[in-house]
């Protein structure tokens, strides 16, 4: 196998983990807090998200094999099933250690929910919307603790940030089912295509509203908001026309979450020039 292919597959596994990092990055852009604590929390959230993905690959091995998803590390024959489980536990350990180092114990709740999402005894995944809600509750609690850790009093901005994270994460989990039509459990089949699309659009609108509320602080964030909204709109349109596939979906999601980084590049360019 070519190294480029291998790197491509690893990149595919990692890219979804930029979601929580991006949330935290938005937080530090807002509050101008760039301390080592935030970086450790970012590292922790990044590792926990990768842990969730790898552990999910381990538990869903049969389902992926049946659907012939060769874009996964396990199905394409690079790793064995138990290897990816062991790797996932290494990431879990790194994540938890970095949470402990940064005194961010609420991260353990997030890690537990990530594990419960695909563990066969609990398997939040099979309850669709309800399960996604339970997983996303960790993003109700995390922003409060982030705020309080750095001595920020409760304000409307923290409140908006909190609900933006929650609804954005819910949206992310719900739209994911639009391309996996052959899975054991699927929101878009269980509730019907139009109803599931309605749920996704509602969540997208709610998250956009809260993001707009956050953007009242800085004019630059309105650009990020507009780009985020445009991509969500385009994404929903594609789902409505049923022209969506796995690759397009992941690229759109990545673009939604690369926005703050683009913003920060512009910000620093303006600051330095």
């Amino acid at each position, binding site marked *: 196998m070519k190294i480029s292919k291998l790197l491509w597959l690893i990149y595919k596994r990692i890219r979804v983990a930029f979601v929580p990092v991006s949330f935290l990055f938005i937080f530090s852009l807002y509050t101008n807090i760039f301390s080592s604590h935030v970086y450790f929390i970012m590292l922790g959230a990044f590792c926990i998200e990768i842990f969730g993905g790898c552990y999910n690959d381990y538990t869903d091995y049969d389902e992926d094999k049946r659907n012939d998803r060769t874009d996964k590390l396990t199905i394409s024959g690079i790793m064995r099933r138990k290897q990816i489980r062991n790797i996932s536990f290494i990431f879990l350990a790194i994540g938890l250690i970095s949470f402990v180092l940064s005194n961010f114990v609420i991260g353990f709740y997030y890690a537990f929910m990530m594990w*419960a999402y695909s563990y066969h005894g*609990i398997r939040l995944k099979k309850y669709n919307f309800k399960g996604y*809600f*339970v997983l996303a509750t960790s993003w109700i609690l995390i922003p409060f603790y982030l705020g309080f*850790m750095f001595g920020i*009093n409760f304000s409307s901005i923290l409140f908006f940030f909190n609900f933006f994270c929650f609804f954005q994460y819910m949206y992310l989990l719900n739209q994911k089912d639009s391309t996996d039509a052959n899975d054991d459990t699927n929101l878009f089949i269980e509730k019907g295509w139009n109803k599931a699309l309605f749920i996704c659009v509602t969540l997208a609108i709610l998250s956009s509203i809260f993001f707009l509320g956050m953007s009242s602080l800085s004019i630059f964030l309105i650009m990020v908001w507009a780009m985020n909204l445009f991509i969500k709109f385009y994404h929903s349109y594609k789902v409505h026309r049923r022209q969506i596939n796995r690759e397009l979906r992941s690229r759109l999601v990545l673009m939604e979450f690369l926005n703050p980084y683009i913003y920060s590049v512009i910000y620093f360019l303006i600051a330095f020039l």
Partner: protein
Amino acid sequence: MIENIKNMLSFMRFTVSMSGSFIAVLAYLLTNQLDFRFFIVMLGSFFACTVIYSYNNLTDKKEDSINRKQTNTITKNNFSHFLIFLFLFLSLIFQYILSTRAMIFSIIFIALGILYSFFRLKKYLLIKNIYTGFGMIPMFLSGTINQPFDQLLINYSLFFAIFITVGSIVSDLRDYKGDKASNFNTIPVYFGYDNAKKITYSSISALSLVILYLNILKLLPLIIFMPLTIYFIYTDKPKRAHLSGGISIIILLVYLIIFSL
């Protein structure tokens, strides 16, 4: 008349709501000076808990009629919905007197609790315990009113979340027979009764270590009651173990009031 009041109190789950409101009151005592707001915090959080438990009564109507063989008469008529809205209104008014921050936190708490019954999360293994424990955090935060947070208070809130999680595992031990008969996936049913006992031993002893790390002087009553709970679980008396945990919270409350005077 007396029967009506009794019905009302059982619909509100008076004792459970009262013990739920103690969490917010504890947060208040740990952060603020003792004054008249004590009663407002208590009433506001009490009504917030009653909203959740009375809604839970409505959704679990069928199961309660099988398990307890008696249903509350209030759950049968439309009056119950009116009551829930009344409780919600009262709790929001009391919290609004304190501060808007307390009100927003109690709204989040009520939303989490109502969705717990609406989505029927009690069927999920482990999620039930951990969700109830960590769902109490907004309630705890609402009790702090307007005090800025520091690292110690964050640790306190997480400590009480884990405390309630362990308490719900003990109550699962208590309801072991009923849950097994009706095929509920609780910890004692899934992992076995003896393993669940081991889990509670280890978690209670871990909690007592956390108390040593946090603040022994302020949480002294809890650490006295912990060996007693372990003893009751060891002798297969989970009902008494659960009761002793509840009593320890009440004694902690009285202790903190004396401490702050």
